[in-house]
């Protein structure tokens, strides 16, 4: 079946920080660029980033990219690829200067240089002492970045397709990527976007978990499209969690609450952190607190009728101090937990925050897959950047502020790679005759399904299963059971039914298509987590509490086809620096 077709030099899917940085690079090079986005670009989830951009500008004291590189590798628990990490850290200052030239309103020092704030995990001289490396625009860094990049893209004549959802990758028989199919929400019409290069910047998929800080749009669309097109997903077992998100909502409760004297209670009213961390108690590091919370819930000491959350008590701090030292917390607790924390404790759970894994790329932003006896063969015409991609700079655990650095550095690098590729490969290749068949069969299956599954119910089952079986602390019995359950849910997701078949702004159809993407991410996460028999970074197993560099210093690759797993070596060889050998990670 043939569909109406639009032709571009490059199609970028996703208009967050990475997508817009890449698009800008392409448009300013004079290429004809389309950017597809489910929502208006400045409403992308990058807007939620508050922390800042990690870059060794050295504006607050001595700093250099090698120290940033050391912190990133150590943070990654040595699973990060050292060539990509060197590239990230060396390019970070230029990424900041570029943004400054675009008019980004950075916070400044009195002498006019860009101000840098301290951030956990960043050090000078290889862990010797903290360093101020995070560049920010108040607590609105992501917001300012999106607005700056959007304005600049408009000026450069980037063509935005707003409220369009990409559906599938188009590949020819050789495997070359030739564009995507996409649906315009307003009309419900499906189009082919034919492109000489296709770049995914669709962000993460934190919505696979019941407890998630991610916005509703973070449904892993790029990951689902890649998996369906036969591209493996890398290191999907690694997800960063925050200990205290509001149970049932996901909205973050700042660590400052525990800093001001708040503490956690189980259903018996016991201050359980005294058992897990006798000295630091509730102020122990994030992973220690989150693991203790998960253990209490697993052992039946959670609160509520389903015994599935922990209580954060702060009424003893006093109303004056809560209002003064923790502004906004009372409002958030009232709005999202329906409790007034000056009287009652807040229900909290460890909450999913960031996806370290993704579509495998090299440090040029080119998508790479194993084949012909090599780990990293470039897929012609296909690029990825930002949270959807796995370069891999975050390895098993992301260092704070490196998510925005990642967007900027690899957004630009992938754009530059596309420019080089298009120079060497002029003209459009013909589309295969069946370019849209797969998409049309998926849409027609969804429209004609009878006696099928309810999209919301299948989604809820997926989120509950991921939370209970593959959360922040992982138990062997729960993982084994979780694999079985997520495969069953996956089969249900293949039989979803929508009652509303209308064409215009049919949000039921959009949510069904989003579930198709989420379920691939959920299944890959569970399978990869069950397989990795060690604890490393954010992957924390009760039965294998130690990191095992002999067996597991390698990246996981998951293929949708029969949930097949392969592994590939971690690149321990930087571009120019000396290699950082794996060491015990302690702070």
């Amino acid at each position, binding site marked *: 079946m043939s569909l109406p077709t639009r032709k571009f030099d490059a199609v970028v899917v996703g208009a967050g920080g990475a997508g817009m940085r890449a698009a800008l690079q392409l448009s300013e090079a004079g290429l004809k660029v389309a950017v597809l986005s489910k929502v208006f670009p*400045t409403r992308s989830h990058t807007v939620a980033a508050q922390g800042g951009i990690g870059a060794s500008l050295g504006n607050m004291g001595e700093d250099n990219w090698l120290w940033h590189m050391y912190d990133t590798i150590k943070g990654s628990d040595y699973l990060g690829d050292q060539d990509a990490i060197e590239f990230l850290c060396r390019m970070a200052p230029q990424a900041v200067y570029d943004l400054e030239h675009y008019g980004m309103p950075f916070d400044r020092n009195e002498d006019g240089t860009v101000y840098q704030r301290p951030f956990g995990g960043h050090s000078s001289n290889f862990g010797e002492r903290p360093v101020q490396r995070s560049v920010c625009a108040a607590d609105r860094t992501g917001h300012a970045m999106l*607005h700056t990049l959007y304005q600049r893209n408009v000026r450069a004549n980037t063509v935005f397709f707003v409220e369009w959802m990409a559906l599938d990758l188009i590949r020819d028989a050789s495997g070359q990527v030739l564009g995507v199919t996409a649906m315009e*929400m307003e009309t419900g019409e499906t189009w082919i976007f034919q492109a000489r290069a296709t770049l995914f910047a669709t962000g993460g998929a934190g919505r696979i978990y019941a407890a998630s800080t991610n*916005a*509703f749009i973070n449904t892993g669309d790029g990951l689902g499209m890649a998996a369906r097109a036969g591209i493996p997903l890398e290191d999907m077992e690694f997800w960063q969690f925050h200990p205290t998100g509001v149970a049932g909502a996901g909205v973050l409760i700042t660590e400052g609450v525990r800093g001001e004297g708040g503490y956690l209670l189980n259903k018996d009213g016991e201050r359980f952190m005294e058992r897990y961390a006798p000295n630091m108690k509730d102020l122990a590091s994030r992973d220690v607190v989150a693991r203790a919370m998960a253990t209490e819930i697993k052992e039946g000491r959670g609160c509520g009728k389903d015994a599935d959350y922990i209580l954060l008590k702060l009424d003893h701090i006093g109303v004056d101090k809560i209002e003064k030292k923790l502004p*906004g917390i009372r409002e958030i607790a009232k*709005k999202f937990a329906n409790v007034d924390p000056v009287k009652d404790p807040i229900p909290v759970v460890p909450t999913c925050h960031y996806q370290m894994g993704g579509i495998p790329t090299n440090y040029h932003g080119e998508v790479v897959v194993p084949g012909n006896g090599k780990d990293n063969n470039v897929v012609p015409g296909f690029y990825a950047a930002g949270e959807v991609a796995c370069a891999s700079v975050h390895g098993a655990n992301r260092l704070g502020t490196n998510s925005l650095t990642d967007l900027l550095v690899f957004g630009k690098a992938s754009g530059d790679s596309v420019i080089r590729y298009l120079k060497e490969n002029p003209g459009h290749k013909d589309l295969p005759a069946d370019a849209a068949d797969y998409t049309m069969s998926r849409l027609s299956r969804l429209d004609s399904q009878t006696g099928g599954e309810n999209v919301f119910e299948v989604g809820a089952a997926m989120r509950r299963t991921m939370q209970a079986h593959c959360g922040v602390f992982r138990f062997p019995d729960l993982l084994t059971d979780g694999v079985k359950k997520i495969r069953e849910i996956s089969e249900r997701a293949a039989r979803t039914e929508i009652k509303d078949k209308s064409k215009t702004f049919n949000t039921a159809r959009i949510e069904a298509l989003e579930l198709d993407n989420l379920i691939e991410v959920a299944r890959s996460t569970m399978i990869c987590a069950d397989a990795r028999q060690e604890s490393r970074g954010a992957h924390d197993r009760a039965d294998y509490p130690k990191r095992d560099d002999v067996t597991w210093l390698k990246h996981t690759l998951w293929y949708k086809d029969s949930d097949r797993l392969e592994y590939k070596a971690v690149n321990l060889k930087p571009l120019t620096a000396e290699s950082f050998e794996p060491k015990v990670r302690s702070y």
Partner: protein
Amino acid sequence: MSDFDRVRWHCRRGLLELDIILTRFLESGYPRLSEAQRTVFSGLLEYADNDLWDFVSGRNSSADAAEEEVLNLLRET
């Protein structure tokens, strides 16, 4: 063409806080709005996420009385 579906999609935001509040409001408050208030609500959705969240969380208020009226309903959500 369903205006409600369009509005519903425009309630998909970059900030989770807004996703939750706006989704709740669509079920509880929106059906009771007058036509004029619905137009104001659609206008509020055009604000940047952080600015809208400042309004909804009470950190800031709008100089426009009609907007404040709808924002007050959102603040109670």
